[in-house]
Structure formats: structure tokens, C-alpha cells
């Protein structure tokens, strides 16, 4: 034990349980949004099984909810391409998060690292990074935090679908506010200054303009990419 570096990266049962336990306080909030997604999915005609498949396989709440806004009964190749682009754009942050996991999970064999990346989500990624920053090396922590998030997300989505299918007029109960209000709440702590002013201003102006000119979801992709470029190239 003369090696000064942190203990080797491994996956243990204790680590998995530790990671799951740390996430427990976040689960009620997650379940509320899972139920909101389920209820919104029911309004779009999703069955319980389709809701479970979407939450279980896609496992990206933001993308799932946004995609519902323009969900259609029949899909053309162009519609599927727009859906893929929308999903890709919204989840671009996962690209960076996964990149940041390289120094840690990169120590594991590929057959363990790549499947575990399926569990990557905003909250458990943040929790895992905090654990890693404190010197943790047990990748089980990350996997456990992801597993509990996945289980709560799928179960609450299905519960929302079952209950939400019974809501007669969702607009009257302002269910359509849930997603945009949550987005506003997510934006507020991200405000840091000039870079955000430029990026968000451009994103707002371009997306609103595009929403009048282009059909479908393209206004999101167009507004987000121009906004990110403007913000990324803005000097501090």
C-alpha cells in the first residue's frame, strides 16, 4: 500500500448502496416530474407500456417531455429526423458529462464502463462528480445513484400515465405549466452574467422568430444552437 494515488477504480455492492442512499432526498421531486411526464404522455395517447418504454429506454426527462409537445400519431422519415435532432440537441449536455467521466470510468473495462453510461442523468452525474471530487473511487456509487433514479423515473411515469389519463381538461388544471415552469426554475441558478445574457438573449430572439417561420420543433434546435454559439464566443 505504498501507492500514493487513490485506491483503484472498482465496483462494489457497498458503493452501489451508498450511491442509491445519497439520492433518496431527491426522489420525491423526481417522482413529481415523472408523474407529470406520465400525465402528459397519457394526454398524447401513450399507453402505460409505451410510457414505461419511453422512460426506461430513453431515460431523459427533459427530452421526453419536450418531444411530447410535438408528438404525432404517424411518423414520416423527416419527422423522425427532427425528433432525433431535437433529442440530440437537448441531450448534448450528456456528451460533456460523459466526457468528464473519462478519467474515472475509463479505468474500468469497456464492458463495464459503456453500459453504466446508460444511467447517466443530470442529478446522479452531479452527485457522482461530488463523490469523486472528495476522493471516492468506487464506481458503484455512480451506478447505484443512477439505478435508483432510473427505477423512480420509470415507476412514477407509469403512475402518472395511469392517473393522468383520467384528467379531463389538463389545461384547466394548468398541467401545461409544469414543464416550462420547471425549465424557468432550472435556468435561474444558471445565471452567471454576461455570457448568459448574450447566449440566452440570442436563443430567445432566434427561437421566437423561428417559431413563426418554421414548422415543428426546429425553432428549439435553431434557437439553442445559435444561442450556445453566441454565448460560447462571447468574451467575459
Amino acid at each position, binding site marked *: 500500500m505504498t501507492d500514493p494515488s487513490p485506491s483503484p477504480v472498482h465496483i462494489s455492492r457497498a458503493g452501489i448502496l451508498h450511491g442509491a442512499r445519497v439520492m433518496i432526498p431527491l426522489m420525491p*421531486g423526481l417522482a413529481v416530474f415523472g408523474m407529470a411526464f406520465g400525465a402528459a404522455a397519457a394526454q398524447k395517447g401513450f399507453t402505460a407500456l409505451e410510457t414505461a418504454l419511453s422512460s426506461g429506454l430513453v431515460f431523459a426527462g427533459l427530452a*421526453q417531455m419536450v418531444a411530447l409537445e410535438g408528438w404525432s400519431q404517424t411518423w414520416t422519415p423527416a419527422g423522425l429526423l427532427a425528433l432525433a435532432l431535437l433529442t440530440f*440537441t437537448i441531450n448534448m449536455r450528456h456528451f460533456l458529462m460523459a466526457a468528464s467521466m473519462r478519467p474515472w470510468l475509463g479505468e474500468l473495462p469497456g464492458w463495464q464502463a459503456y453500459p453504466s453510461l446508460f444511467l447517466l442523468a443530470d442529478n446522479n452525474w452531479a452527485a457522482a462528480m461530488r463523490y469523486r471530487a472528495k476522493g471516492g473511487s468506487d464506481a458503484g456509487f455512480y451506478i447505484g445513484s443512477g439505478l435508483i433514479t432510473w427505477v423512480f423515473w420509470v415507476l412514477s411515469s407509469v403512475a402518472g400515465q395511469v392517473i393522468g389519463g383520467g384528467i379531463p381538461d389538463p389545461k384547466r388544471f394548468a398541467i401545461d405549466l409544469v414543464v416550462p415552469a420547471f425549465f424557468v*426554475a432550472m435556468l435561474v441558478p444558471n445565471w452567471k452574467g454576461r455570457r448568459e445574457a448574450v447566449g440566452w438573449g440570442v436563443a430567445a430572439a432566434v427561437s421566437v422568430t423561428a417559431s413563426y417561420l418554421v414548422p415543428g420543433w426546429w425553432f428549439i434546435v435553431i*434557437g439553442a444552437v445559435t444561442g450556445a*454559439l453566441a454565448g460560447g*464566443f462571447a468574451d467575459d
Partner: protein
Amino acid sequence: MTSLVDPQTLLAIGVMAVTTLFNRTAGFFLMRLVPLTPRVRKVLDALPGAVLVAIVAPTAVHGDKAMAAGLVTAFVVTKLTRSDFLAVLAAVAVAAGLRVFTL
């Protein structure tokens, strides 16, 4: 509505699933090959916020007064409490209340 899974819906879910899996693994894979330059990192850092704004701004512009009031409520409550849960609760309450009184 009698079937458990509609093939068209399944296809669309499958497209989303493959795309998210690509998002989750590609960055990890590429970190071996292409180091992120500071500029690329800045653009990627700015992306999540830009995505949210590009969704919220058109929603606010095209929505009714209750939508606008609800989103302002969400902003104020987040500022005051730092709780996204309370912000959504308050936004929904305000918008639902306004719609009851104006309908």
C-alpha cells in the same frame, strides 16, 4: 387504443433511445481521441441554458396570460426559495387560478 404498443410510437421511442445512448457514450469515447478545446467547452457549457431558453421563450410568447403569469411566478419563487419543486407548484396554482377566474 386497444393495443399495448403502437408500432409508430415504438419506432419514435426507439429513435430517441438510440440518440440518447449515442449522447451518453460518444463524449466518453471521444475524450480518448479529441481533447475539448476551451472554446468548444464554452460552447457546450452554454448549450443547456440556450436549450431551455429556446423552449421557454416561444412558449411564453405563444401562451395565454395565465402561462405568462405562471412563468413569472416560477421565476420569483425560485429566486426566493431556491426550490424548483415549490416554483412549479406555485406556477401551476397561479395559472390554474387565473384560468378559473377568466373563463
